[in-house]
């Protein structure tokens, strides 16, 4: 199973990005094979509207079934939920630490949006 982490970098040591739709990028981690794929989100990040929805579409396209991020706005939450993607929230500073917490089952799920659109 694949899990997407929002990040401002391209490796497991990179910082987490607390934004979902407007994260700089994503790390898609495959739990079965322990492989990492880095995805650039700059094009979506710079769109005027609909970043959360586009990001959700990308997450689904990459086959991730869970997202680990800081916060999630209403449109993104609606789109991810419709696609059956689980949303987890964390304040872990790096992707590696967030992954560790995810593996340990220590992350809280986000059952509704916790910020407004365009929150940061």
């Amino acid at each position, binding site marked *: 199973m694949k899990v997407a982490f929002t990040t401002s970098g391209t490796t497991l040591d990179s910082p987490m990005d607390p934004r979902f739709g407007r994260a700089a990028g994503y790390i898609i981690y495959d739990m079965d094979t322990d492989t990492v794929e880095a995805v650039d989100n700059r094009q979506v990040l710079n769109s005027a*509207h*609909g970043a959360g*929805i*586009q990001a*959700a*579409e990308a997450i*689904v396209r990459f086959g991730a079934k869970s997202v680990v991020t800081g916060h999630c706005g209403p*449109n993104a939450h*609606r*789109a991810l939920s*419709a*696609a*059956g993607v689980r949303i987890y929230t964390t304040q872990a500073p790096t992707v590696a630490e967030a992954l560790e917490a995810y593996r340990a089952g220590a992350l809280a799920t986000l059952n509704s949006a916790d910020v407004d659109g365009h929150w940061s």
Partner: protein
Amino acid sequence: MIISVASGKGGTGKTTVSVNLARTIGAGVQLLDCDVEEPNAHLFLKGREIGSDIVTIPIPTVDESLCDGCGECGRLCRYHAIVSFGSAPLVFPDLCHGCGGCALVCPRGAIRETGKRIGVVETRDADGITLIQGRLDIGVAMAPPLIRAVKSRLNREKTAILDAPPGTSCPVIATVRGSDFVVLVTEPTPFGLHDLGLAIEMIREIAVPFGVVVNRMGAGDDRVHRFCRDEGVPILLEIPDDRRIAEAYSRGELMVDALPDYTDHFATLMWNIRDFRNSGGK
């Protein structure tokens, strides 16, 4: 003739020029307040309301019993206002531009359009001047459909003045497109000059003849004038930096009513616009 009054920078005097030009032309002229996020021409041309219409944009409604989740609608929509993850699509009305494309491409006919209210168009009569203004509802982000609704009420047989929103983005383009002439109002300051440059780039792109009005002459420097000379842009009118103008404005009075010595200025502006057009911009 349709004359748009635009500017790059806000607060340069678009409404001042629009309402005074309308009063100078007099009864029979139409003034369209296309600054639908904050229409203010009615503060100067008071008159009485003669009509008000609700404006809607079409947004998709999906009949889930007909939808097979093919996702064609979502692939078409560049605004991501409708998305499908292999099941009935989600609609995000706030992102929808009302183009109707999703209903057209749906192979199952599962999408029909329903109206979503975005604002009103109000028509007022002020001593023979027809003021048509759009008023966007609070929380609505999309001005162009309402601006087009305002413009659809325009009678092409008569002269129309279109008071545009500031800036150079979609609402401004929705306003000035189709005009015969654009008046760009600026001020002789670095900010005025910078945004005038952006506005000129935009107007040249949509290929409408234009000229400049310099407001608050004497308040800044001569860089706007030098720029216009170098670019071959005509200066149609200069309005001095006169405290009495600001005082009249703050009372909601028209310059040409409160300060009759300025009536000639706006007659000259109209004359310059006609002259520029008749000469083919030479």
